[in-house]
């Protein structure tokens, strides 16, 4: 029997320990306790979220692989599948920003090529504290350098993403990395063991003491001592991963492998018991055979190490030499460390002596599942009101626009993506920073469009609605590039699930994701949950991040945000309800996080996506951009940036609700959903509006591109005028002013 302190150090409750004894049929030894500790951690077992995740829609005609494998996959045509997933590396990135972010990139890339897919694109969803604070800037600079250092070296382009800033991420930055790869349907490889007597190979980097209990660290809150957890953060070696990637893909082409599993969180422990459990068999290994970087490592340390760039391969008996030859070509270790056994057990030996012997499924399927108590936070009614008396002086719309364009959440992210190789592999057909990321698929006419989105402020005010809006925005961004949204992945970033209010947020958000994914026909094929994003009792805004993948049948029809020329009609799809709740305007200009997030009609949202796909196919529209943070005025300004520098002159209606809180801000900066600004040749305008009406999407021609200014009239009265060059300069320089050190 272990004492309470030992159990606590292993993140296990006495109740969980009793269950372990019951499942094993005896007291576990310390090595076995370590295995349970990591496999039953929140990070690996999803014990708090699993009951909710089960409600997500995971099936669809295009789904090739749903949740449960290393990554999900959807059919994109031509016998090909897009294999993708998003994963968090939040906790390590706070403790050691460069390595934390770098190994986050490395981990998700392994998940993709483990499936037999060649990774072709990376995106990042990042959250940081206030940029005014030096510590935020230091973390941001480290994270950006780490993502670049890994992705650039391995040669997978980082093609897009999103970044937001809020006080709640001060002590818990979020680093969510999305990766997408391409595989032929018949070449997808599963992470499961089969064939009694088949050898189990360990390939890649040697095992060291780094990252022991990383999964357990990621399953606890931070406190003053967290900086001392640095040894639990792994160190990445992108060159090693590049070798591993090429060698594994080369081996998988030969069909000499029956299963492949990467060693991510919980390392060798997780990969051995999961492959066994998935295949309904067992795995026996001898840790003495594992290549080791340090001397004197115990079986406990070897099993729990999270050293990076390692994979487990189940090889067909008789094909060993073939596999070893490939790894030799790439100068990598490929060592036989054990074999597949008939009993459903994970048996670990050290120099032939059994040191752990556990039923596989006790570690995986039998992990605890909690129905944690949930409670709606108090004071929702108050939160949902925008207190007129707390608004500061109302700025002129011209000034408000410049303030918003300079806010780090809205400002150009060129300072960041310029440090990422976003062009390598020469597939990137939508320039960086212009909306969804789009890569062509060579050898076909296809292109894939990807967007990652999430808005913690909306989710804080109403987690279900915020989550619905996140799915809608990601899918809308994809549709704005002309692509049909076909699949989704989610990364759920929340605080401590043992608090009923947090658990309620999580459950509501998952319900909202489910509703939106069903309505928009984007099944969830996998994802990741990151809980305990709290420091000293203060949690992050609930931040579900959604990645949506879409397919363009004809890559040449891709659309971007920027107005391509002067003399085009500007058409607005959707209705402006003037909703300021949770808006960037309220936060940036008035310092308030209040109100009700925008309403969302999912049927109309879906109709809008199909309309955009149809209009891109026919070539009737020349650009498309959705209204998001900053509302209509910011979206309109962004359409003028990065292109030919053309201005625009529009006249819109006053939003119904405007005139209350802060006119005309609600009309200009309210964030009503399901709105897209498109441009079209004047002779196409009639056809575009007719198509929209047929689809049930409100549409109206609001003006024309041209001139050198952004001019917005409301009901015929000019309310906003700003030169494109001044507005663009503010938008473009904001981040570099902060981060290159000119600003204090």
């Amino acid at each position, binding site marked *: 029997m272990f004492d309470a302190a030992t159990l606590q150090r292993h993140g296990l409750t006495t109740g969980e320990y009793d269950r372990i004894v019951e499942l094993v049929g005896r007291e576990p030894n310390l090595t076995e306790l370590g295995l349970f500790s990591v496999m039953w951690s929140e990070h690996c077992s999803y014990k708090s979220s699993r009951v909710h995740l089960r409600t997500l829609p995971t099936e669809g005609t295009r789904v090739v692989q749903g949740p449960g494998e290393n990554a999900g996959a959807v059919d994109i045509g031509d016998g090909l599948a897009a294999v993708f997933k998003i994963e968090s590396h939040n906790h390590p990135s706070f403790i050691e920003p460069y390595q934390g972010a770098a190994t986050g990139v490395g981990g998700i890339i392994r998940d993709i090529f483990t499936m037999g897919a060649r990774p072709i694109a990376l995106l990042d969803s990042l959250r940081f504290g206030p940029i005014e604070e030096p510590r935020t800037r230091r973390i941001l600079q480290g994270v950006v350098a780490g993502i670049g250092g890994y992705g650039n*070296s391995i040669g997978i382009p980082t093609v897009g993403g999103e970044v937001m800033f809020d006080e709640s991420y001060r002590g818990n930055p979020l680093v969510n990395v999305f990766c997408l790869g391409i595989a032929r349907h018949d070449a997808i490889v599963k992470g499961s063991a089969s064939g009694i007597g088949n050898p189990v190979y360990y390939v890649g980097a040697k095992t060291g003491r780094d990252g022991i209990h990383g999964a357990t660290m990621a399953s606890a809150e931070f406190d003053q001592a967290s900086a001392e957890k640095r040894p639990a953060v792994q160190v990445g070696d992108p060159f090693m991963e590049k070798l591993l990637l090429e060698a594994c893909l080369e081996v998988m082409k030969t069909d000499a492998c029956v299963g492949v599993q990467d060693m991510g969180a919980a390392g060798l422990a997780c990969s051995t018991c999961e492959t066994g459990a998935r295949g309904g068999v067992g795995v026996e290994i001898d840790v003495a055979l594992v290549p080791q970087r340090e001397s004197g490592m115990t079986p406990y340390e070897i099993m729990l190490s999270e050293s990076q760039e390692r994979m487990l391969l189940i090889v067909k008996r008789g094909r060993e030499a073939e596999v070893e030859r490939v790894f030799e*070509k790439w100068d990598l270790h490929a060592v036989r460390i054990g074999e597949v056994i008939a009993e459903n057990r994970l048996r670990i030996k050290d120099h032939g002596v059994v040191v752990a012997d556990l039923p596989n499924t006790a570690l995986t399927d039998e992990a605890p599942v909690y129905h944690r108590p949930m409670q709606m936070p108090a004071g929702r009614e108050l939160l949902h009101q925008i207190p007129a008396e707390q608004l500061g002086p109302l700025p002129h719309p011209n000034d408000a626009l410049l303030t918003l364009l300079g806010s780090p959440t809205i400002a150009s992210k060129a300072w960041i993506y310029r*440090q990422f190789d976003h*062009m*390598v592999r*020469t597939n990137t057909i939508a*320039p960086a920073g212009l909306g969804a990321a789009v890569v062509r698929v*060579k050898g076909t006419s296809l292109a894939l469009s990807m967007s990652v989105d999430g808005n913690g402020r909306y989710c804080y005010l109403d987690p279900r609605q915020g989550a619905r809006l996140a799915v809608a925005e990601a899918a809308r961004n994809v549709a704005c590039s002309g692509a049909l949204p076909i699949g989704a992945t989610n990364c759920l970033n929340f605080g401590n699930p043992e608090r009923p209010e947090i658990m309620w947020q999580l459950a509501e958000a998952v319900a909202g994701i489910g509703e939106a994914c069903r309505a928009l026909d984007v099944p969830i094929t996998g994802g990741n949950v990151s809980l305990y994003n709290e420091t000293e009792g203060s949690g992050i805004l609930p931040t579900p991040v959604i990645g949506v993948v879409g397919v363009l049948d004809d890559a*040449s029809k891709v659309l971007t945000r920027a107005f391509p020329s002067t003399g085009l009609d500007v058409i607005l799809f959707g209705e402006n309800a003037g909703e300021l709740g949770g808006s960037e305007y309220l936060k940036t200009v008035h310092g308030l996080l209040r109100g009700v997030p925008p309403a969302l009609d999912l049927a109309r949202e879906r109709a809008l996506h199909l309309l955009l796909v149809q209009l891109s196919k026919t070539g009737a529209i020349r650009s498309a951009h959705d209204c998001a943070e900053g509302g209509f005025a910011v979206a309109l300004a962004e359409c003028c940036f990065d292109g030919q520098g053309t201005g625009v002159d529009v006249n819109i209606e006053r939003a119904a609700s405007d005139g209350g809180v802060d006119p005309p801000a609600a009309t200009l900066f309210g964030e009503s959903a399901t709105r897209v600004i498109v441009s079209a040749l004047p002779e196409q305008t009639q056809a575009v509006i007719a198509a929209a009406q047929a689809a049930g999407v409100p549409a109206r021609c609001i003006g024309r591109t041209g001139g050198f200014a952004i001019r917005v009239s409301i009901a015929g009265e000019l309310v906003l005028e700003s030169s494109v060059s001044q507005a663009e300069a503010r938008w473009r320089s904001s981040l570099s002013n902060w981060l290159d050190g000119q600003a204090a």
Partner: protein
Amino acid sequence: MKVAVVVFPGSNCDHDAYHAVKHVLGQDAAFVWHKETGLGGADVVILPGGFSHGDYLRTGAIARFSPVMAEVIRFSEAGGPVLGICNGFQILLECGLLPGAMLRNRDLKFHCEQVAIRVEQTNTPFTNLCTVGQVLRLPIAHGEGNYFAPPDTLRELEAAGRIVFRYTNAFGEPTDQSNPNGSIDNIAGICSEARNVVGLMPHPERACEIAVGSADGLVLLESVVHSLRAAHV
């Protein structure tokens, strides 16, 4: 024309070079693994971009010891055209086929962006279809592209017309602001004394199709096709 694209274990622009030669230009291309000791009868050698051996020491420092490099040196000494792109340029510097060295970019950051370069010399196999002063829009993607050479070497390079490309603004003026990495004299690419070995930091192979943003790089590949045809006449 047959192009050998040398593949080091950490090369990551090898497929891009292959695609540009084979599928855009319509010429023959083949990958040559760095452990090989022959070039498979190629007419042109491309050392592609990437991180040859991880480049944790200096970029390209280990690559020059790869078995294939002895053959690349022999090929160049026989007058064969060799193009080093990005990491390939760094390797050419490390193995002594081109003079000078690379420093970290002056702001110590990786840069991936479109830049303008001016063609300074047209009497190389990779620029003979260009005009002097022509401005090309090509992407860069590197953290260590700050070219440096001592004054004597620079004078020699200048005197012999071996500075092939310079970073400029869109009007072809080599300003400090248009220099993305701090390279001395805005140097973006140089050639060997015999002019057949050319190295540059920007990526012409990434700029061969309008769909990916620019087709200005294609002229370098078309030039070498032209120069080989001229040699056969």
